């Protein structure tokens, strides 16, 4: 063990003992500090988990979606285009998708109606699979209760439940109704051989750009959306929301830094006497500064661990009850979903920077002032 390490160990020992003597003051400071960290850490952890969820969801999405545009607006796409797209080399599979929205006047919610791409998931005629939130918001009391949808006054479209979608997929399926193609076309009064859009799977992800370029030449009026673009948009959105939250919390960090500086400059008579005695028995100014830096460091670390731990519980055990509406967004049907607990090292490091740095910067001058005072002056 080098002398430097021994010195630091002794300083840490002494500092811990000194802090224990002023327990109430230090615990008070630690709690306020932890509260500030808790707010920022909650936003960070929540946003990280949402980004992760988005990544998982999008991993299953098709590499490319082709939509028809008429006058700049989305329009139905002809089934003939499927064959044209299939002819492009490198394309794995092309499927026409049928999906649409329905505004339910009964509860003011928007549902997503869709024909499942997986043939095994397609329910029999007259039946549908319901998302997790739908029976809840429509008050379908029992499992076999049919759903009646009214497209216009006097109309009733009956769908019997073929089952319910699992709770695990609630993030994407809360408002979903899965039904067969014939029912779907009948419900929206759609002609045959048209689709909402076309999903294209591509075998080699490095060929996506080339295939998009070829499809663009083939269908100059179509909108081509790649999975990466959707993923990027989600990432940016969640980063932005998190950044806004943290930037707003910056005010509280600043307030806390001022509070900490104030606290550090107003040393109690006992502390001043302690520094005087330490210097009188041979402690150097840099020893006192090192001791005080240890004190700040221990408080920072304690508050960081405590605040982040609380934030972890808040986000993953209590569904981020305090900030969820800001970070998630809001709608009539909102999925009731659990986030997968996860911690991101980069975000935590950044959080440490954002919270510990202002505290250290704010307390260093008062620390130095206290440390450079003459022993006879402070003991008088």
């Amino acid at each position, binding site marked *: 063990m080098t002398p430097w390490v021994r010195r630091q160990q002794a300083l840490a020992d002494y500092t811990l003992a000194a802090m224990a003597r002023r327990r109430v003051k230090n615990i008070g400071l630690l709690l306020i500090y932890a509260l500030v960290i808790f707010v920022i850490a909650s936003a960070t952890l929540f946003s990280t988990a949402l980004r992760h969820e988005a990544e998982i969801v999008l991993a299953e999405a098709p590499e490319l979606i082709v939509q028809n545009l008429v006058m700049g607006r989305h329009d139905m796409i002809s089934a003939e285009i499927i064959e044209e797209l299939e002819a492009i080399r490198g394309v794995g599979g092309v499927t026409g998708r049928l999906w649409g929205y329905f505004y339910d006047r009964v509860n003011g919610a928007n549902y997503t109606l869709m024909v499942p791409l997986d043939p095994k998931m397609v329910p029999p005629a007259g039946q549908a699979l319901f998302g997790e939130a739908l029976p809840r918001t429509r008050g379908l009391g029992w499992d076999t209760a049919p759903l009646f949808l009214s497209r216009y006054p006097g109309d009733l479209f009956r769908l019997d439940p073929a089952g319910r979608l699992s709770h695990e997929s609630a993030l994407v399926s809360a408002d979903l109704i899965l039904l067969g193609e014939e029912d779907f076309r009948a419900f929206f009064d759609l002609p045959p051989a048209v689709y909402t859009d076309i999903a294209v799977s591509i075998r080699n992800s490095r060929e996506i750009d080339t295939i998009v370029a070829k499809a663009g030449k083939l269908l100059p009026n179509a909108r081509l959306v790649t999975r990466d673009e959707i993923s990027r948009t989600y990432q*940016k959105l969640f*980063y*932005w929301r998190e950044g806004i939250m943290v930037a707003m919390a910056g005010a509280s960090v600043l307030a806390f830094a001022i509070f900490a500086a104030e606290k550090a400059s107003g040393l109690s008579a006992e502390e001043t006497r302690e520094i005087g005695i330490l210097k009188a028995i041979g402690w150097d100014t840099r020893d006192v500064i090192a001791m005080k830096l240890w004190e700040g460091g221990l408080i920072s670390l304690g508050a960081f661990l405590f605040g982040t731990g609380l934030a972890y519980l808040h986000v993953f055990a209590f569904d981020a009850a305090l900030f969820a509406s800001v970070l998630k967004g809001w709608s009539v049907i909102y999925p009731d979903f659990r986030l997968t607990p996860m911690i991101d090292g980069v975000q935590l490091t950044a959080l440490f920077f954002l919270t510990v*740095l202002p505290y250290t910067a704010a307390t*260093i001058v008062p620390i130095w002032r206290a440390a450079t005072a003459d022993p006879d002056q402070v003991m008088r």
Partner: protein
Amino acid sequence: MILQVPILALLLGSALASAVALWAACFAIRVLRGWDITNGSGQQLALERATQLVSTLFGLVMLIEIAALFLFVFNADRMATLFVGAMCAVGTFNANAWGFPALTLKIAVFFAAALWLRLDRLDRAGHDYPLTRVKYAAILGIAPLLLANAAAELAYFLNLKTDVITSCCSKLYTPANAGLAAEMTGLAPGRALWLLAICGLAVALAGGAVLLRGRGARLLALAGIAFFLAALTAIVSVISLYVYDHPNHHCPFCLLKRDYGYFGYALYIPLFAGTALAAGVGMMRALPRSDSLAAITPLAIRRHTRRALAAFALFGAAVLWAIASSQLILFG
């Protein structure tokens, strides 16, 4: 600008570093003009007290800057998903003209910080603060570097737009281009490994001379810097190929990705640490001699030499492991 927490943290760190650097530089002028440890005047006493504060604050800033380099690079790699065309940190740095200048300045600040912290510690070890003038003259040199770093970083982050199409590493690290990266990529793998081995031998010989005979500290510093450059060239030219098991993928940044087990950190951390330590050994030898440090400096030089050699050896072990465990056969 992308409102992202690591970016906010880095900008906060840079802002704090700039403020401290400006203040410390102003104070450094006072020290260089009026510092006289033999003088017992009130002015000198006040100056001595103030140096404690400035040194502590500047030391903290230097520590922050060392950590900031890693955060900067790691976050750039993480942000690659936000840019069209980016596969790793190269795409993020290429997203505007300020990315690579900011990275270069951050690396320069890293080495300056490591050397200054060494200087500060040595100065504090002497009872009469024999290196104070040198230390504050160094602050005058480092402060502009910190300001330039903060400015480049700010310009980079402010101009970071996610709708630009950036170029991926395979476009930058290809022998077909002009420029330094292409020159490094184009160097024959065998030659790059020989160059690395020769520089490694030079480091080992110079380190051995310092440990056994107490001579050759400056040579070790030069050999360390040469090894650093040779290592970067070898990483681009050949080591990366072994890690990726691919004869044409030369990117030195993809190594930092999870896909490759964050192997880049096993290469870069010992390499940067070893280079900083070796340069520190040379610096300590070049410092003006003083009585109070007569016994301390040689010990510190030996200790740092041992650490530098250990760090370079770790780098060497990581390189050998990458070559031995790879499926790629480049020679024979």
